[in-house]
Every structure is written in C-alpha cells, then in structure tokens.
C-alpha cells in the first residue's frame, strides 16, 4: 500500500498528467503525419525536456512514443500512408475499410486495440521487469539468428495470392539491403563510391516511397479515369464508428494474440515493432475463421496489427530497465532521454532510483486511458483528412512524404530515394507483387546476415545443441516451411 501511495503521489500530479497528455497529443499528430515516426519525434523532443523533472520528462517522451504509435494508424487507415514500417499491416486492412466508407470504424478499432495492447503490456512491464531480466540474458546471438530465420517465414504468410511473387519481392528487398559498408572489413557493397550509401538505403524513405507515393500515383490514375467517366470516388464517412457486440467479440481474439506477440517481440532485443505487427497480422490471419477477407478490409487485421504495434513500446522497456538493452529503436532513444536526466537504465536502476521507477510506472499507466481519450476526441478532426478533395490530398500526402524523407536524413538524398521507390512501388502494385514482403526482406535481411556470421564464429568449437531457444525456433521454422511446401504441392498437383 505504501508503494501504491508513492506511485500516486509521484505520477498523479497535475504537472505530470499535463506533460504526459501533451506528449500524447503531439505524438498523435506526429504519428498521423506520414513519415514522421515516433523515433524522429522522440529524438527531437529529448532536448526539450532538459529543464523538466525526470518523471515528467520521461512521461512526456513515453507519451510521444505511445501517441505517435497509435497516431500512425490514422494515416495508415485513411490515406494508406503508414508513418512507420510497423503500421504497414494496419494499412493492409484499414485502408480497404476506409475505401468502403468504414474508415471511422477502423480508427476506433485501431485506437481500442492500441490502448488495450499498451495497457496490458504496461502491466507486464511492471510485473516482469525483474524476473525477466534473467531470461533476457540468455538470448544470445545464436538464438537471435534462429528467431530471424523464423521471421523470414512471414514472407510466405504475407505473400498473398502468389508465393513466388512474394519470394521475389522479399529477395529484392534482401539484395537492396546489402548496400553499404560491410561492418567488419568496411568493404563497400554497391555504393558506387558514394558516401551517402555507406549506411545503406534509408528505410523510412523507401517505406514512404513504396507505400505512400506509389499509392498516390495509383490513385491519381484512378482519379483521372473516374473524372473522365464523370464520377468521383465516394469517400463518405456518414456512418457511426461504434462497433456492434458481434464486432467486439470478433476483435477480442486478434487483440489478445496481438498483445501477446507485441509483448514477446518487445522483450527480445533487436527485433522491433515492425516484426511484431507483421507477425501478429500473419497470426491473426491464420487463426481467423475468414482468412480470405484479410487485406480486403477486415477489422481483425487492424486490431491485430495495432495491438501488437503498441504493446511493443512498454515491453521493449523491460530489457532496457532490467538489463540496459533496448528492445527497439524507440527504447534506444528513450535510453538517451533517461541518461540525460541522470538515470542510467540497467540492472541498477531499481536500486538507485526506486522513486523514479515508481513514478515512471505510474506515468505509463495513466498514459493508456489518456491516449484513449485524446484519440477519441481528436478522431472527428482526423477523419476530416479523408473528406479532403483529391488534389489537396495528393499534394498534402506528397508534401508530408517529402518532408518526412527529408527529416530522416536532413538532406535531399532521402527525397530522391523516396521518389525512386515511389516508381518501384507503383510497378510492384501494378504487377501485383506484395510490397510487404519486400520491406520484410529489407528489414530482416541485414540483421540475419550479421546474426548468421556471428553465430558461425560463436558456434566454432561449440554445438548448436547448447542453445535450446535456437533449436526451438529452427524446429518451428522447419514445421512452417514444411506446411507451406505441402500446401503448395497440394495446390499444384492435387492431394495425394
């Protein structure tokens, strides 16, 4: 009880609530703007918190992270422009819903899923930080390698109609991700001597180009065609956003599985929110009674992606606070914020700054209901984006895309990459190649390469049987690949 009163005393102060709300509000707007990711926003905001009290400062930063993760769904659903790779699966079903005039419903599902995922993962953080530190220590590079190999099977789950097209797009993603300096020998791969390519192609610029810009080109085509025929696209949003009892029951399972997947991925260092939301989406699709409707506007898809995306934020703080290992980009940036306020994340933080930790837990908990309130109140405002006439939408999206690509790198190179990948994305869509597998290949490819090389050295003179987690994931991978193989065989040659 003493602990509880300390939490209330530290976190339920007017100043703290105000800063958390402000962070959430800014985050929500930033998230809704395509290309302004939570990482960028939080990184820019860290210096602003210099004069704040540590609990308020971290509450403000966490508010930005949580708000922008939830806000990302708004642009993903309404204009098919995910602010970050992790909200790409949200757009897969959210955008078709919006085009069917159910954008508002999709937004409510996304917000509720985000809030529940966030709230439950926060409790997980509070209860598991200390005990899970022990397990996290044992996740070595060999285990990570096996997990990444397993993650590659998501390509099959998300390939859509054609597995071969999915594999081709995934491989192209992997190949493009090899561009840059090789980490050990500094050998230049496909850089053509340009220093700008030493770090590889910028992911955010590619994601914005291939998703947002390509979609705008497609829509421009449709718009011009529709104009000739004399009817505009109907984007009416008259219907209520509230869900029926049956719909609540439908999204309950994807939210539960999404929260579980997001929490799990967040705890494992180095995987990131994108893998969580893709995995959750693939899992929900597999578990659904109606997997065929995924990608065509199924609220379960939105719920699965958003709950996982938001659950990653609190759970990636678990390894950060327990071990000093950030489980995600956002945790790494928050770590910088912690350090600036004299809090060194790691095993000592519970002993050194117990008051700070209790205040932080309190801030994290109050952020969930505040996020729901701000999201619901702001929704009317955000839904209007969709009623904007196409020329404004087109120029608006391009404007924010260019700004986002520029902000990421601070120079025009990112903008050119974005435009080039806008064209690539256009042709991918025209020829029905899934851009999702391309992005998965691009994200996981280099991580897997490094993990395999590390594992080869680490396993020298050892055995993989010393790594039970790795064995588990490799067996799982064989099972999944085997099932895909059987399914393909059945489809091609019929059941035997």
């Amino acid at each position, binding site marked *: 009880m003493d602990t509880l009163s300390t939490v209330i005393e530290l976190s339920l102060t007017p100043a703290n609530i105000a800063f958390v709300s402000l962070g959430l509000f800014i985050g929500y707007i930033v998230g809704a703007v395509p290309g302004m990711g939570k990482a960028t926003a939080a*990184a820019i905001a860290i210096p602003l918190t210099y*004069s704040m009290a540590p609990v308020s400062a971290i509450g403000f930063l966490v508010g930005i992270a949580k708000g922008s993760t939830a806000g990302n769904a708004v642009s993903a659903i309404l204009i098919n422009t995910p602010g970050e790779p992790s909200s790409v699966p949200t757009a897969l079903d959210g955008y078709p819903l919006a085009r069917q005039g159910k954008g508002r419903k999709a937004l409510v599902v996304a917000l509720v899923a985000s809030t529940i995922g966030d709230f439950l993962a926060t409790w997980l953080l509070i209860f598991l930080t200390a005990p899970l530190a022990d397990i996290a220590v044992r996740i070595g590079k060999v285990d990570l390698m096996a997990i990444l190999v397993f993650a590659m099977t998501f390509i099959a789950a998300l390939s859509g109609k054609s597995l071969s097209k999915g594999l081709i797009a995934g491989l192209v993603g992997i190949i493009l991700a090899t561009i840059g300096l090789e980490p050990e020998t500094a050998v230049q791969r496909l850089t053509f001597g340009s220093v700008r390519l030493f770090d590889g192609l910028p992911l955010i610029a590619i994601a914005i180009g291939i998703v947002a810009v390509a979609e705008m080109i497609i829509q421009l085509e449709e718009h011009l065609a529709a104009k000739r025929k004399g009817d505009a696209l109907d984007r009416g949003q008259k219907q209520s956003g509230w869900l029926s009892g049956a719909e609540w029951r439908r999204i309950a399972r994807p939210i539960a599985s999404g929260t579980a997947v997001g929490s799990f991925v967040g705890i494992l260092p180095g995987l990131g929110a994108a893998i969580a939301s893709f995995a959750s989406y693939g899992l929900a699709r597999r578990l659904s009674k109606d997997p065929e409707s995924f990608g065509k506007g199924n609220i379960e898809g939105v719920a699965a992606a958003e709950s996982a995306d938001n659950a990653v934020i609190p759970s990636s703080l678990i390894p950060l606070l327990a071990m000093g290992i950030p489980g995600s980009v956002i945790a790494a940036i928050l770590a*910088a914020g912690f350090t*600036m306020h004299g809090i060194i994340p790691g095993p000592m933080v519970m002993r050194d700054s117990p008051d700070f930790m209790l205040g932080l837990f309190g801030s994290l908990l109050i952020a969930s209901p505040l996020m729901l309130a701000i999201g619901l109140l702001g929704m009317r405002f955000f839904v209007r984006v969709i009623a904007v006439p196409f020329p404004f939408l087109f120029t608006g999206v391009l404007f924010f895309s260019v700004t986002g690509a520029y902000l990421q*790198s601070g120079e025009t190179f990112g903008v050119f990459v974005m435009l080039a990948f806008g064209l690539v994305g256009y042709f991918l869509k025209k020829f029905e190649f899934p851009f999702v597998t391309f992005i998965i290949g691009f994200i996981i490819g280099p991580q897997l390469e*490094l993990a395999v090389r590390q594992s080869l050295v680490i396993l020298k003179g050892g055995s993989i049987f010393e790594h039970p987690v790795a064995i588990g994931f490799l067996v799982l991978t064989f099972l999944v690949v085997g099932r895909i193989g059987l399914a393909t065989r059945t489809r091609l040659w019929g059941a035997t």
Partner: protein
Amino acid sequence: MQILRNLLVLVAGAFAMTGLTGQPALADYPEKSITVIVPTKAGGGVDTQARALVAVMEEELGQPVKIVNKPGAGGTVGLQQLMAMKPDGYTISMNASVSFLQNPITQGLDMGVDDFAVIGTTGAFQTALVASGNAPFEGWDEFVAYAKANPGTKWYSLGKATVVVMQAIAKAEGIEMDIVPGQGGATVAPTLIAGDADVSFSGGIHAKFLPSGELQVLLSTLASGQLMATPDVPNSQELYGVSLANNMTVLAPKGLAADVLAKLEAAVEKAAMSDRYAETMDKIQYPVTYMNSADSTSQYLADEAGFKALFTN
C-alpha cells in the same frame, strides 16, 4: 525560455550596437546565427554533449547557435558537408574525433585533419577493451595468458578501425583470436554478458556496468591520460603503441580567419569549462578534457599518422 533568452540577447545586442555607433567595428563576428553540424542522430552521446556546449556558446557569442543533425557513415557524411562550406565561422561541427581520423581512412575517403580547422577538444570518450565480469580471467595479463592457452578466443569488433587496432595488439602478443562482427556500441554489454564473445572494444558505454561487476575493464585504449572509472588499468598506447582514442571535437572548414578562430576557440573553452557541460558530462560519466586549437591539431595530426601507418601495414 529559449525565446525569452533570445529576446534578451537581442535587446542586449541593440544596446551594445548603440554604444559602438561611430566606431568602425574591427571584429564584428558573429553578426548572425551559427550553425553546428552534429554528424550523428539526435539523442546520442555526441549530440547530448553538443547541446550542452551550444547553450553556453550562445551566451558567449551573443548569437543563436543552432544544431543540425546530419547522421551517416560514422560521421563522415556530415563532415563532408562541413568541408564544402565557406570558412566564415558560421558553419562549424561538433563531432567525435573518429569521424575525421579513423573513419575516413577505413572508408577510403579523401578527408583528414588537414581539411579542417580544429577549434578545440572538450571531452574524452572512455574507450577501452572490456570483458564480462564472470570471465575466467581478471585483468589484462590474465586475459593474455588465457588467450594464449585458448586459441580461438572470441572478440567482438565494432568496425574496421577496431579490427586494425586489435590485430596489432594480437600480433604483438602472439595470440590468435576469432572475430565476432558487431554493430552498434549498445550491443557490447549484452554480447559479453550473454557470453557470445570473450572481449570487446567499448566506446565508453561499459561504465554503467562496472559498479554491478557485470563488466570489467582490461585495457585502456586512450592515447593519453587515464580512464575516469578505472584509472589503474594498463594502456594500449604504452604497451603496444596503438590506441583508439575518441574525443569530442569542434571543427570548422579549413581556411578560417585567425580572429574568427580565436573567438570561436575562446567560446568553446568557456563552454567546455562551464558548469552546464560539467553537469552533462558527469551524467554520462565522461571526463572534461579541454585542449585548445593548437594542441588539438598537433595531437590529431600525430594520431592520424599513427593510424594511417597501422592501417596500411
């Protein structure tokens, strides 16, 4: 607060101007805002230090000093942009010294100390060779003995520069080790603690794992001076003639006018000696090690020559 401060500066500036009317202004630099290129992402160790320095320099110079983050390729992207700027003192850079010493060499870029005017050095990253606290050896001598007895001892590399330095050390001791390639300083501690490698370079992040005994420092890789947290460990420069020193440095494009350089140098010194910077450095556990323009330049020229020789061997 920022707006208020800028307003005050403006008002103060206006008073100063009226006081000076009629006199020809000899040294009127700076008469507009100064841009600082920080060639890393916002929020890291370099960025945090730069923001503390800039706050004091603003007061000293009476003009806004703005940070622009230009990350990429270990800082060389941002520094190439600095090289292309006019040497008028209105664009400078605050960066880690590896960005213009080791990284251009390993990346094969035509860029070095000669391409810049070094304004000053403000702090030292605590670079060292570290190992897990649970390792079967304690201290550098025991590690060398262990590595000799166990060929194929694994060490975790963080880029080509660390490979070059470690190979020189291994050659001198006659030990054979396997490289586990790594990326990102934040991965050092978890890798060592999980037992995936026996020893690793660290850019300074190890300090927070020392009090708990999770990590131990084997060898300092500073070019001179002692490590703040572990002053007693041996030094690679003394033992093997190689180092991987990394300092917080303020640079300008080559060809800066002498009076502008002097003004900037004075402002950087003030900032390096300020309470604000000391407070920031205390939080990230790095020492303030101020060096003026001339000392910094000769130190870096020597470091550069040493690393070039090592690299081409």
